[in-house]
């Protein structure tokens, strides 16, 4: 064989090898729009278009980002302690984290929804749920602080929450892990079908103060509730909840709760439920215990109270309260279109998206177009009777859908890791873009309201792998910003998030920025241990309790010399920040305290408890750089042995020694 033959042969072999490679499809790659940098760049000193409130998942907190820049502005502590802000460490905030189980320092904040007026965000509050120890929180959008937390009784895992009705008449809380009702819990776990129940709570929101009250609960068969959306517009007065585990399995849910071809979306006529509740048709349940914690902006303190009564309506005892719509394969999202006419079910193991019509549902109900068998007493509407249509081959693992202002829907797909845009009327898929990687929830600005703002879509991803510089085994989750103003979605930006971002809300900047609080009026401070100016700063012994009435102002702490503290004392530093200037908090920390710092806003009084563990001199100082002489803003406490003759003595500066 000649050289030429060898060459031909090896060329043929090489061609064969490469042609195998060629039949492999190329990945989607990294399709970033050319001028993405320009479209997400907010020049120094300029503002973002939107506030983006993002759930912190297992961090228990809520984060506030700007869109389109993806800049993090603030982490609002909600369900978890936050030593940076003294949340759960200061005496004033400790009651906020009290539950019927005692002080709970952590939770899993899943979803966020804004308060609505007429189906639009009104900029008053954000609501948030905790999944582990079931609670609901209300965050004040003037102060960006958590104002209220209420515990939800009869519930195990408050996942299906905090979705609100068109005018935030109610915030919904519903169980993800059905459990026996409170007080009836000591039963065999395999008696699930008999003893375990679901509860859907309707927590009313006071229009002015925002205060929560569990108005009534609906008791249901032992389904697991995942997500919900209240009806709006034509469907106002209804609530749609995705239900999984219609199998009512109690073990290896991964397999046993995935058996049925269809689970349900539960449609609840909540106006009807309200009527029955007001007519006194509910049953008072008095063996419950749940915490109701409220923040008072004037006393700068929280109160904690345990409540022991709730009204329960068993939906199986009413004919016209709830209906089940079959929905394929363990649905996650149950999302209502802006007009309120369409309800989109996202079965996370399904290969299509069913879209239900409210009008058809109403017709089916009035014609009793039901399956022959009820599900544990609840009528099941025939799938086809309520169906507007199915989106064919949309992707794998649909999770959650939001809407724009032009009649389009956007659905996230966890398994195939993409966002898909489709038309609500025609059900035609219009565009798909990959996400990096495995998107959970998505959010369109105003995408759950009656008039979505549109423009931006953010995908909240569970996996980031190779997207950012690696940081060991634990990687950040991420948000991905898309511009949806054109026909095709355009990827603009990746940014890391805190904890795990589940749901989020975006509010136009101008809805909030002008009413954002700058300082607390010191004259309105009603804290019982407030210090009215430096002249009133003092140290008072009450038995073994020592109260330090302390003030901070640039650049000194009064008093900054404290003697006469003894071993066995409990010392309370009640620190009043006398500043009345924007962005001028002071911090306070003392050596060896088994506690966090305090971070005291202008005009506020906050308390740190300290139990000295040894005799000696303990420096304390301001922890938040406040001024050129911040380093000088410090002082000393002297701790003497128990029974020492050292008297209580305190002062700041040589001129005003006081005893």
């Amino acid at each position, binding site marked *: 064989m000649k050289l030429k033959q060898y060459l031909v042969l090896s060329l043929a072999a090489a061609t064969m090898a490469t042609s195998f490679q060629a039949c492999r499809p190329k990945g989607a790659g990294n399709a970033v729009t050319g001028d993405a940098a320009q479209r997400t760049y907010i020049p120094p000193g300029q503002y973002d278009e939107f506030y983006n409130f993002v759930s912190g998942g297992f961090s228990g907190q809520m984060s506030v980002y700007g869109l389109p820049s993806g800049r993090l502005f603030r982490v609002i502590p909600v369900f978890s302690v936050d030593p940076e802000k003294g949340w759960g460490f200061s005496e004033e905030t400790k009651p906020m984290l009290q539950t019927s189980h005692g002080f709970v320092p952590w939770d899993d904040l899943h979803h966020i929804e804004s308060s609505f007026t007429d189906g639009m965000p009104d900029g008053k509050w954000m609501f948030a749920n905790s999944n582990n120890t079931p609670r609901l929180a209300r965050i004040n959008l003037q102060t960006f602080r958590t104002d209220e937390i209420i515990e939800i009784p009869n519930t195990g895992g408050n996942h299906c929450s905090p979705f609100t009705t068109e005018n935030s008449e109610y915030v919904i809380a519903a169980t993800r892990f059905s459990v026996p009702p409170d007080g009836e819990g000591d039963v065999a776990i395999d008696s699930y079908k008999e003893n375990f129940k679901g509860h859907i709570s309707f927590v009313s929101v006071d229009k002015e103060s925002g205060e929560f009250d569990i108005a009534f609960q609906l008791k249901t068969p032992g389904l697991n509730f995942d997500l919900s959306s209240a009806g709006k517009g034509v469907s106002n007065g209804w609530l749609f909840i995705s239900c999984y585990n219609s199998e009512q399995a109690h073990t290896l849910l*991964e*397999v046993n709760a995935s058996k049925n071809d269809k689970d349900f979306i539960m449609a609840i006529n909540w106006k009807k439920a309200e009527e029955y509740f007001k007519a006194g048709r509910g049953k008072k349940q008095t063996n419950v215990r749940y915490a109701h914690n409220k923040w008072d902006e004037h006393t700068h303190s929280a109160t904690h109270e345990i409540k022991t009564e709730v009204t329960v309506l068993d939906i199986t005892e009413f004919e016209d309260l709830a209906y089940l719509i079959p929905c394929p394969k363990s649905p996650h999202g149950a999302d209502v279109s802006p007009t309120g006419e369409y309800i989109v079910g996202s079965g996370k193991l399904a290969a299509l998206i069913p879209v239900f019509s409210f009008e058809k549902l109403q017709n089916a109900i009035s014609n009793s177009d039901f399956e022959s068998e009820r599900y544990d007493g609840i009528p099941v509407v025939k799938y086809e009777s309520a169906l507007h249509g199915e989106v064919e081959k949309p992707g794998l693992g649909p999770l959650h859908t939001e809407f724009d202002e032009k009649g389009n829907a956007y659905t996230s797909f966890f398994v195939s*890791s993409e966002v898909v845009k489709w038309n609500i009327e025609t059900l035609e898929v219009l565009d798909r873009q990959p996400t990096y*990687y495995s998107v959970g929830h998505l959010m369109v600005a105003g995408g759950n309201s009656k008039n979505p703002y549109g423009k931006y879509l953010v995908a909240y991803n569970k996996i980031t792998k*190779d997207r950012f510089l690696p940081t060991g085994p634990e990687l950040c989750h991420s948000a991905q910003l898309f511009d949806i103003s054109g026909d095709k979605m355009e990827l603009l930006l990746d940014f890391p998030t805190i904890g795990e971002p589940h749901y989020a809300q975006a509010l136009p900047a101008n809805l909030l920025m002008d009413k954002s609080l700058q300082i607390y009026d010191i004259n309105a401070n009603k804290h019982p241990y407030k210090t009215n100016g430096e002249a009133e700063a003092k140290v008072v012994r009450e038995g073994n309790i020592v109260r330090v009435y302390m003030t901070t102002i640039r650049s000194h702490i009064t008093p900054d010399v404290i003697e006469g503290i003894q071993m066995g004392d409990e010392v309370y530093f009640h620190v009043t920040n006398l500043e009345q200037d924007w962005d001028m908090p002071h911090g306070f920390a003392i050596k060896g305290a088994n506690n966090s710092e305090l971070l005291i806003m202008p005009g506020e009084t906050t308390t740190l408890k300290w139990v000295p563990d040894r005799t000696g001199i303990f420096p304390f100082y301001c922890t938040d750089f406040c001024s050129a002489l911040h380093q000088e803003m410090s002082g000393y406490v002297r701790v003497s042995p128990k029974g020492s003759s050292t008297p209580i003595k305190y002062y700041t500066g040589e001129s005003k020694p006081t005893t």
Partner: protein
Amino acid sequence: MTSANRIILIVCSLALAAVIFLPIWRIELDAAQYPEGLELKIYSNKLAGNVEIINGLNHYIGMKTLHADDFIEFTVLPYIIGFFALSFLAVAISGKRKWVYVLFAAFLLFGIVAMVDFYRWLYDYGHDLDPNAPIIVPGMAYQPPLIGFKQLLNFGAFSIPDIGGWTFIAVGVLLAYCTAREIWLSKKNTSNEKHQF
């Protein structure tokens, strides 16, 4: 038998000996969540690559877990390949043309049987699914392609020979060449009434 062919057969013998220790086949899996890709490498005596991760993912669709112990192939394959390596050497030393033909026939047969066996193996794994699996897509099977690319739900499966497999193929091609050359020579010799051996 030409000395060139004898040298080729000796080279083939060494190459086959190497195949015992090289990955023969490779199945690459791609999904959005696995930008780095997952890989299953099949050696003559073991499975390697991301076997545990692939087993973990496959449980969602109810596929049996892959364990080298379940395959008799991994026990006998190294011996068969070793036997062929020795046979190539023996034929080269013997220099008998007839044995080249026998070797070619045996090697071809082995190649076919091996591929049929491999196909059966892929078919079983792709079709024998646990009816209690969390994800059941009606009518969907997850048989990876014997060779080439196939989309299986969110995973793209790409199946190709690995270095050992390519070596094996190259040995086959070289053996075919030797065989053809010997046939051609023998015909030429017969017509020329001349013995070159």
